C-alpha cells in the first residue's frame, strides 16, 4: 500500500476548492443564466404554442360550429329548393293542364263554329237549290188561269174587312 502524503492531499483540497470556487463563481452563473434563458425561451415557446393551440382549438370549434350551421343551412336550402321545385313542378303541370284544357276547349269551340258554319252553308245551298227548283217549276206551272185561281184563293184566306166595306 502506497503512503499518502499530506501535502498531496492538501494540494488536492486546494485544487478542488479552487476549481469549486471557479466553477461556483465563474462557470456556474453563466451556465445557470444560459439554462434559465433557455428554460425561459422554452416556456415562452410553450406558452406561445399553448396560445396558438387554444386559438387553433377555438378556430376549430368555430369552424365546427360554422360547418354545423352550414350543414343545417344546406339541409334547409335543400328542403326549400325541393319545396320550390315541387311547387314549380306543380305550377308547370297545372299550367300545362290549364293550357291543354283551354286548347281543347278552343278546339271544341272552333269545331262547333265550323260545324255551324258548315251546316249554315249547307242549309243555304240547299235552300238555294230548292228555291231555284221551285221557281222553275212555278214558272212553268203557273199560267194565267192558275194565277187567277191563286189570287182568288188568297182573297178567301186573307182576313179583310171587305165585309164592312161592302
Amino acid at each position: 500500500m502506497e503512503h499518502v502524503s499530506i501535502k498531496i492531499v492538501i494540494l488536492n483540497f486546494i485544487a478542488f476548492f479552487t476549481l469549486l470556487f471557479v466553477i461556483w463563481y465563474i462557470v456556474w452563473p453563466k451556465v445557470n443564466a444560459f439554462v434559465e434563458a433557455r428554460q425561459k425561451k422554452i416556456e415562452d415557446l410553450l406558452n406561445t404554442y399553448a396560445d396558438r393551440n387554444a386559438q387553433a382549438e377555438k378556430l376549430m370549434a368555430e369552424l365546427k360550429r360554422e360547418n354545423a350551421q352550414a350543414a343545417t343551412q344546406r339541409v334547409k336550402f335543400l328542403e326549400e329548393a325541393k319545396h320550390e321545385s315541387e311547387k314549380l313542378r306543380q305550377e308547370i303541370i297545372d299550367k300545362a293542364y290549364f293550357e291543354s284544357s283551354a286548347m281543347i276547349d278552343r278546339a271544341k269551340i272552333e269545331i262547333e263554329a265550323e260545324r255551324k258554319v258548315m251546316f249554315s252553308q249547307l242549309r243555304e245551298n240547299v235552300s238555294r237549290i230548292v228555291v231555284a227548283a221551285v221557281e222553275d217549276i212555278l214558272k212553268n206551272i203557273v199560267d194565267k188561269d192558275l194565277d187567277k185561281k191563286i189570287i182568288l184563293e188568297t182573297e178567301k184566306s186573307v182576313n179583310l174587312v171587305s165585309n164592312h166595306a161592302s
Partner: protein
Amino acid sequence: MPRKLFRDFSFEVFSEKLSKDDAVQLATEIKAFRKFLDQSDEIRFFLENNTIPVETRKQIVLKCVAGIEPEISVFGLVILFFLLESGLFNRLAYFMNVLRIYLAEEKNLMLVDVISRYALGETNLRVYQASMEYIYHKDVAFMYRCDPQVLGGFKLSWHSGEIDLTVRRKVNKIKELISQGR
C-alpha cells in the same frame, strides 16, 4: 215637311187640275221615263248635269219623251221641266214620292202600285180596293205593272205600306225556313 225641297212647286194648283185618271197616268208616265233613264246613263248624266243650260236639257227631254210609251202628258212635262229649272232633276223619284204623299194626305187619292205576273183587271182587286178605301177613307187608284219575278199572286204597295200576296214571298219564306233549319 218633305215638300220643303220642292217649295217652288205649287202642289195645290197642280193637284187641282189633276184628275184621278190623270194621276194614275202621270205616275205611269214618270215610271216609264225613269225606266228609260235607267237604260240610258248618258242621257241621265246630261239631264242631271246642272252646268248644262236648262233650255238645252229641255230639248233633250222633249226628244226623249217622243220615243217613250205611254206618251208623256202635259202634267209629266210640267214636273220634268220644273225639276230641270230648279236643278233637282236627280230627285225625280223623290219628287214622285212626295207628290204621292201629297195626293194621299191632301187630296185623298191613294196611288197604289200593283205588281203581278200577269195583267190584272180592276175586277180582280175590287175587294182590296174597297177594303183600302174603307180603312184609309181615301180614293184608291191602282197602277198595274207586270213582273214575272213575282211568280204568281200580286203585291200592292203605296206611300205608307204594302200588302205582299205573291208566290215569290212564299218561296222566299220557304228559303228562309230552310236556311234557318226550322
